[in-house]
C-alpha cells in the first residue's frame, strides 16, 4: 500500500475559504509565504474559536475527507466531526485528500486567532485563492515558545528573513542611508 500523501495547500485552503472559515495560516507555510527558504509539507492554521466557525471548519474538513492523525498509530482514524469536536482538544492533526492540515486553537506563546489576526495580512496565492497569512514575527514567537527541536533549528533563518524583510521595507520606503 502506498504511503504517498499529496501536498496541495491551495486546494485545502480553497475549501476553507469557500466554507467561509475564519482562520489564519501559521507555521512553516506562513513562513515560506513570508520568504523563508525552508520547505514544509503541511498546512498549519489557527481558527477563530466560536461555535459558528467550528461548524464551518468541521464542514470544510468533511469535504476534504479529513482523517485524524494520531501519534504511534499507523493508520489515520475516521472520526465524525462537528462543532463540539473542537472543544475536546487544542491541537488537531489531520490527513486529507489534498495533504496534511494541523489545526491549533492556541499555538504556543500566543492567544490564538485574535492574537495572530492583528498583524496578519490577506495574500493572494493563486488566481482562485486568497488567504490570511500570519506575520513572520508572530510565527517566530510561536516557534520560539514551542521550543521543539525542529522549530529551534529553523529559528536563526527565520530571524534572518525577518531582518532582511524589514531592511527591504526601509529601502522600499527610501529610509535606508
Amino acid at each position, binding site marked *: 500500500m502506498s504511503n504517498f500523501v499529496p*501536498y496541495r495547500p*491551495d486546494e485545502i485552503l480553497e475549501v476553507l475559504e469557500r466554507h467561509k472559515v475564519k482562520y489564519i495560516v501559521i507555521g512553516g507555510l506562513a513562513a515560506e509565504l513570508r520568504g523563508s527558504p525552508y520547505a514544509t509539507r503541511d498546512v498549519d492554521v489557527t481558527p477563530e474559536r466560536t461555535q459558528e466557525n467550528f461548524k464551518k471548519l468541521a464542514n470544510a474538513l468533511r469535504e476534504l475527507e479529513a482523517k485524524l492523525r494520531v501519534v504511534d498509530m499507523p493508520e489515520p482514524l475516521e472520526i465524525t466531526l462537528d462543532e463540539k469536536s473542537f472543544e475536546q482538544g487544542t491541537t488537531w492533526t489531520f490527513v486529507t485528500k489534498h495533504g496534511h492540515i494541523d489545526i491549533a486553537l492556541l499555538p504556543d506563546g500566543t492567544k490564538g486567532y485574535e492574537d495572530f489576526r492583528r498583524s496578519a495580512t490577506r495574500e493572494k496565492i493563486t488566481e482562485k485563492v486568497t488567504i490570511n497569512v500570519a506575520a513572520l514575527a508572530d510565527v517566530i514567537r510561536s516557534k520560539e515558545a514551542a521550543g521543539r527541536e525542529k522549530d529551534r533549528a529553523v529559528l536563526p533563518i527565520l530571524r534572518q528573513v525577518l531582518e532582511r524583510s524589514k531592511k527591504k521595507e526601509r529601502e522600499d520606503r527610501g529610509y535606508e542611508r
Partner: protein
Amino acid sequence: MKIADLYYYEDMISGDLIKEARLRAGMTQVELGLLTGNAQSVIARWERDEVSPSLETVREVIRACGLELTFFISKFDDSNTALIDDNLRLSAAERFESMMERVRFQERREQLNSNTRV
C-alpha cells in the same frame, strides 16, 4: 526627514525581541511600562525600532516578561542571504508557485523511484 528617522539603525532586532517577549507574556505596552518603570510611549518606540535600547535594557525588559535573553557567539553565516533576498523580491503568489514547483518535482521523483522499485 522625520525625527524618528534619525534613530533608525540597520537590521535592528531589539524591538522585535521586546515585542515578542511582551506578547508571549500576554502583556500590553502599558503593563510592561508599569513593570519596568517606562512610559507606554517608550515601549512603543522601542518596539517600532525608532529608538534602540541598550542590550542591558533589552535583557531587563525581557526578564520583566518572565523570560530570559540568552546569548551565544557563533561563526557568521550569510550563505542564505542571497536566497532570502531573492525570495523577498517575489510576491506571495510567486513564492507559492515556486514552492509548488519544488513539490511537483519531488513528487515526480518519488513516483519514479517507486516505479523503479516495482
